[in-house]
């Protein structure tokens, strides 16, 4: 049997080596296809839950279809108009007729909402005007509108309408950066008393950075202890670290309120010890946010660190000490450099997860400690302004990507060890 097979192989090899190569290539291709096929479910999953929603969010942040859809003729006329002042009668008439039609079809609501997004009060202006609009103009449409509300004589509302007539808008992205377009279509700073999002973005990154730092300071010695203790002791301790993972975030945050409040155990203990005279304000402010978030995030720092530290042989430390290094120096020179991949991964995990935090700051923070997702939730859940919600999300995404690239350059991505 073996002999015949071998002789046939030799025969094949001799007669047609290209056929063999082709057969080999075919098998190889089939194997690659099969391997690729195995990743298809993952790929489909990633596209459905990751790529598509992000693309959708980016699109929502610049989408401007309300006026184009509901008032097609008015939108066309406004786009043709070169802008400045109140538009000529045909444009005003096209707008008034579309306003009538939209009011009759009860489709005006999204347009009114869209205009209100750019200027508070325009929702009522548009809805109120639509209710009182006569069938035919009293003289000109311009005079008719002005008689209903003098606001229609202001160039501002028409500039606003012209911008709403374009298929895309930068309104939301600008507003997310405390910017606006003035009446001449120039980008200027928004009203100073409403300038909030740049501060919130900076606050989001600052809180995340502080939490990362605290997690590192607390988590590193803890991880080192866990990695060097015998498993019999280390494993139960590890469970204590993991315990918060198995508790609802809501419960943990609420528990911190109880612990940190004015008449809570920490304040009572400090007063009893005579360290303070008056209870400290530890919750509903920045201190509360940092304490609670550091607690929530700690496992994300400890786990990658422990997994890296366990791979460092004890003999390294012993050798360094044996060669005469004091223990601390031995640690600095021998152990610390080897844990860098774990530090990089832990810090990245904690920072990235912190950036999107919402529930914990909302519960234990004050009004001045809310992070960007608080505002995203406000726009999606309370005012149903998807444009602003998406724009804030997009800006957070962009800022995070930039920070990530800087971080990758500093730490080196190939050196990260996530667990």
């Amino acid at each position, binding site marked *: 049997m073996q002999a015949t097979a071998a002789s046939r192989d030799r025969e094949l090899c001799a007669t047609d080596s290209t056929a063999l190569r082709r057969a080999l290539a075919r098998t190889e291709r089939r194997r690659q296809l099969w391997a690729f096929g195995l990743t298809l479910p993952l790929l489909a999953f990633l596209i459905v839950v990751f790529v598509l929603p992000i693309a959708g969010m980016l699109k929502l942040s610049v989408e401007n279809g309300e006026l184009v859809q509901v008032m097609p003729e008015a939108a066309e006329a406004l786009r043709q108009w070169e802008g400045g002042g109140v538009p000529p009668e045909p444009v005003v008439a096209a707008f008034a007729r579309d306003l009538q039609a939209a009011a009759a079809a*009860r*489709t*005006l*609501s999204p347009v009114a909402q869209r205009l*209100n*997004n750019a200027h*508070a*009060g*325009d*929702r*009522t202006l548009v*809805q109120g005007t639509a209710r009182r609009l006569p069938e035919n103009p009293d003289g000109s449409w311009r005079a008719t509108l002005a008689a209903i509300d003098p606001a229609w004589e202001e160039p501002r509302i028409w500039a606003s309408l012209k911008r709403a007539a374009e298929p895309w808008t930068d309104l939301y992205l600008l507003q997310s950066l405390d910017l606006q377009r003035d009446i001449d279509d120039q980008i200027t700073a928004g009203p100073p*008393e*409403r*300038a*909030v*999002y740049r*501060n*919130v973005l900076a*606050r989001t990154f600052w809180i995340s950075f502080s939490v990362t730092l605290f997690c590192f300071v607390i988590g590193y010695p803890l991880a080192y202890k866990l990695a060097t203790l015998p498993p019999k002791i280390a494993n139960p301790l590890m469970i204590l670290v993991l315990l918060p993972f198995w508790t609802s975030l809501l419960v943990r945050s609420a528990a911190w309120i*109880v612990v940190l*409040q*004015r*008449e*809570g155990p920490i304040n009572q203990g400090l007063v009893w010890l005579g360290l303070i005279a008056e209870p400290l*304000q530890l*919750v*509903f*402010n920045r201190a509360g946010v940092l304490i609670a978030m550091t607690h929530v995030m700690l496992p994300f720092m400890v786990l990658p660190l422990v997994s890296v530290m366990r791979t460092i042989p004890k003999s390294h430390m012993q050798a360094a000490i044996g060669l005469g290094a004091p223990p601390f120096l031995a640690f600095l020179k021998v152990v610390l450099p080897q844990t860098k991949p774990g530090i990089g991964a832990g810090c990245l995990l904690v920072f990235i997860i912190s950036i999107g935090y919402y529930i914990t700051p*909302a*519960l234990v923070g*004050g*009004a*001045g400690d*809310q992070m960007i997702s608080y*505002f995203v939730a*406000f*726009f999606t*859940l*309370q*005012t*149903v*302004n998807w444009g*602003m919600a998406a724009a804030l999300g997009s800006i957070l995404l962009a800022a995070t990507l930039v920070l990530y690239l800087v971080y990758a350059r500093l730490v080196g991505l190939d050196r990260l060890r996530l667990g």
Partner: protein
Amino acid sequence: MSVSLIRIAALAGVALIATSAQARDLTIVSWGGAYQDAQREVFFEPFVAETDIAVTEDSWNGGIGALRARAEGPPSWDLVQVETDELVLGCEEGVLVPLDWETLGKDNFLPPAVHDCGVGNIVWATVLAYDADRFPDDPPTTWADFFDTEAFPGTRALRAGPRQALEFALLGDGVPPGEVYDVLRSPEGVDRAFAKLDSIKDDLIFWEAGAQPPQLLASGEVIMTSAYNGRVTAANESESRNFQIAWPAGFVYQLDSWVILANSDKQDEAMQFIEFWADPARQALLPPHIPYGPTHVDAAAQVDPEVLPDIPSAPQNLPHGLFFDDAFWVDNVEALNERFNAWAGQ
């Protein structure tokens, strides 16, 4: 395993076909929980007993998006309890049908309860609350007291965000309830409200969820707070607290409303229920279960005098109330929320 799965799927399919072929009951949708339990006892079950119209219940968490989705496609919800913003937007968009006010009679209801597409069904309020055990002699009685940190030292709390906070700031600054929204509609009025909030900024914290204010009072975190009136009464009953509501200080009240969805094929039955519910004697039975006020003008007089002081639409409380201006807030909430957070972050 797989055989039994197929069998279950087949059974579920049969059940699905069976239910969709069945005649649909009148479907009433409310907020669920203890509130809907009370509604069931006072309104739903007696209605079924009297009219023989079968009722199915559902509950929801609000949101105009959910209402829009239900109003498209085959009828599923008929009668829904909504908040005012959903009432206003739903009516504008044609999601809701206009009500027949001929039979209900506009004069029979509190003025804010009358709307083209809905009738207000409960009154609830955001009030000034404090722990009476902490103020044995001299409790706060006005919103001016809330903003007076010298006479009443200690931390106080308001709901996070501009809504109600600005109204209370103006009340505390001496603006009469009837003029609060006129003042707020001018830029100077908004400045005035924020200046008032700023005057106690160091002693002010903010709550997010309605469950927090009673907890803040109970733990001594704050000496007084704005709170939903139902939560205050509930804390007194379930935890035997001695929380008090300073009704005469002024409060902001809001309504929920019954509405009928435009695609309902049970509009007559839904209207029949509204007429059944509108009876003042029946409305007066709800407050002993849960301290939300009736909207029929004659109902308050028939409420058990024990619980009457706890409800916003009691004759002794209502004159101090300020009706929450949804039109103002739908227009301005985003701009003022930005301003509020800019102020809070300074």
